[in-house]
């Protein structure tokens, strides 16, 4: 059964069209990598799905709800969390406070701390490093730890699908390995569906799963990550050989 379905979704910024009529569906438990060069529209697509940038056209369904153009916090409450690019931790808050903000406690009434406590323990179980430094200021964490923190923050709403924008951005390769290790473990533990945007296909080939290649706002290829990654078609599409 498909968890997320996009039909003919497009995203525009003024006159610029970033995503042109993209359609695909994502089954529960799947890992989908969206790769592609700079300016392919990957991040725009992700932002449209999470509701940060409302789509200019098309329709997005999540678990049978039409979520097209709904507010990000509503979409998060339905179980679709997004981890934005660039690890935007709340630097002046402690790790624990960062996670608490992730619960969307604005909507919670009295006793939100107690309700958040069980989610907190679950996130700490996944990322023990966060528990060790729970009272440390988030701004003092290393890049890898900050990435784990924003993933942890996205988990605080107990989502079924997590959409992550470039988790490897600005991280050393061995740190990226650690982040992915946790992601893969999470997927098994929580039966999570993952939607990951990465610029390069290397990571997708290592992890496996499904891969789509975007370029110029369109999806050019869609298939098994390992098979696609080694194909000639992939390179040709990525770099746009043979179009001129």
């Amino acid at each position, binding site marked *: 059964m498909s968890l997320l379905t996009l039909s003919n979704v497009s995203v525009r910024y003024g006159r610029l069209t970033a995503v042109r009529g993209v359609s695909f569906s994502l089954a529960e438990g799947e890992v989908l990598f969206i790769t592609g060069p700079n300016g392919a529209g990957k991040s725009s697509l992700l932002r449209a799905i999470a509701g940060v940038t409302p789509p200019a056209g098309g329709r997005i369904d999540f678990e049978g709800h039409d979520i097209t153009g709904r507010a990000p916090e509503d979409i998060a409450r339905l179980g679709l969390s997004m981890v934005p690019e660039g690890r935007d931790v709340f630097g*002046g808050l402690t790790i624990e406070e960062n996670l608490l*903000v992730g619960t969307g*406690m604005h909507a919670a009434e009295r006793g939100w*701390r107690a309700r958040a406590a069980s989610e907190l323990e679950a996130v700490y179980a996944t990322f023990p490093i966060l528990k060790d*430094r729970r009272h440390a200021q988030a701004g003092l964490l290393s890049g890898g730890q900050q990435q784990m923190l924003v993933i942890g923050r996205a988990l605080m709403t107990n989502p079924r699908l997590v959409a992550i924008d470039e988790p490897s951005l600005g991280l050393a390769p061995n740190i990226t390995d650690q982040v992915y290790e946790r992601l893969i473990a999470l997927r098994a533990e929580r039966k999570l569906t993952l939607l990951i945007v990465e610029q390069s296909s290397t990571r997708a080939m290592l992890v496996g799963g499904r891969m789509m290649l975007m370029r110029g706002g369109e999806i050019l290829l869609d298939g098994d990550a390992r098979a696609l990654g080694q194909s000639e078609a992939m390179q040709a599409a990525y770099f746009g050989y043979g179009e001129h």
Partner: protein
Amino acid sequence: MRQSPALRSLSTPILLSLLLVCFALAAVFAGSRPFNQTIIDIFLQVIFVVGLYTFVGNSGVISFGHIAFACLGGYVAAWTTIKPMLKGGAMPGLPDWLMQTEIPYWASALVAALWAALWAGIFGSVLMRLSGIAASIATFAMLAMVNSIYSNWESVTSATSSVVGIPIVRVIWPYLIAAIIAVFVAWAYSISRHGLALRAARDEPTAAAASGIDIPRARLIAFVLSGGIMGAGGALYAHSIGIVTPDTFYLGLTFTTLSMLVVGGMSTLSGAVLGVLILSTLIQVLRWLEAGVQIGTSTFALPGGVQEIALGAVMIVILMFRPTGIMGNKELNLPMAGSEKAGRQGPEPQTTNKE
């Protein structure tokens, strides 16, 4: 275990209060009238700086206008505590019921807090949509508006002349208690969910909005609360000297309050309180040196006016070495097990290649 973050941070207001109690005891043991007054001034300044911190520290928006709320509070003290006979002469335009009102000083401080909070709510619902320097300038405009209204509305404020006859409270304890209450209120707010939301919005407005935080509303709550603290402080200030004029609560007090907050460390409660205590102590020491110190048989005295210059120089030096203030981003805390255990796994090289 669940309550641990709140309990853990409880040590901060307790330590700060103990520090204030130490200052109060010093005044009691010294037993001199002028020194007593100095300590009272320090406690009042603590209330102002903590009030300002409640908004500025949590929201990251600098306000130049908070002393306006102290002004509103100071005049509430004048309206509600001066003997009706005296009031009629200085402020003939007051409504009859207010003219006949005469309440104790602590009640006037409470009414002042409510009155200032009301106006903070009115101004704030317009101002809190602004961010950055625009917000700061708008708060300054608010200060100028309040000042010119109070300087010209002769029948209820006696214009620029001093309003005298406010009952003077010379004992130190009410001021100490008020300062401690301000510290605890500010602490409770900043760990509440409203405070948490506002601090998140201060650090990353976009991510905070995406987490569903209504930023103008979060700011408004802090603005009203801090306006209330300033109002109470203004009323107590009036009771400490017995007179008010609009210029008591204008640029001079605004800049003293802001600089103490900046030197102490804008984003923490400890910074707010320590900024006052350290700078006030420094001012006092310089005053003594100006007055002259007996060393052996000779008297050593600094030339007059050195106090202001030295104070400025010290502030520059502090900010040179600690640009985020004395406390930086740290709260005063009891060292507790497991709080800041190093969890680092060696250096993690970071490159910054962005898409």
